């Protein structure tokens, strides 16, 4: 029993490391989408100011 508990303890330590997946691709796409939204909004706002 004591040995099993020890194994469990070991497993607990491993679990977070397994969940830590790479977010690099997600990050790039989120930033590209963000830049597109900010860019298109800024372009519209510039047209609005230019026509005032």
């Amino acid at each position, binding site marked *: 029993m004591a040995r099993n508990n020890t194994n469990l303890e070991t497993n607990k330590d491993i679990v*977070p490391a397994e969940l*830590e997946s790479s*977010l*690099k691709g*997600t*990050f790039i796409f*989120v*930033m590209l989408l*963000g830049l597109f*939204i*900010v860019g298109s*909004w800024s372009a519209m*706002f510039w047209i*609005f100011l230019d*026509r*005032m």
Partner: protein
Amino acid sequence: MHLHRYEKIWLAFGIGSLVVFLTLLGITAFGFGHHPPSHMAIVNSQNLRNEAPFNKPGLQQIDKTTYQANIIAMAFAFSPNKIEVPVGSTVRFNVSSADVVHSFTIPKTNVNFMVTPGHVNMAEHTFTEPGTYLVLCNEYCGSGHHSMQMAIEVK
């Protein structure tokens, strides 16, 4: 709560964009007095031609360079369908609808708003270039929608 470093970055980017957007919105609203074209001024659309300011449709001069244009939108025309102002004039458009929802759009200007029955819809524009400005309805209002237009002559 554990947040990945990338998650922190894109959350900061999103919240930062929101802060910038709301700050600009606040500056234009409170600093420059921008407001939605349809505000709290209302009229009785059933009796529009007897209600001020639409009982006197057309152009009224307010001061040397400022005019007020009271325009009624209806299926499928604007009344009046032509106005004339000198170059450099600022025109305040008061537009309301006698029937369904229309729009009042002067292409290539910031004048582009919905004309809702029962509301006085307002916009202001300074005409610095001479020419004939087309005004269109860009809110589909029925079978004659495509022919609904008027002109502003700037001389």
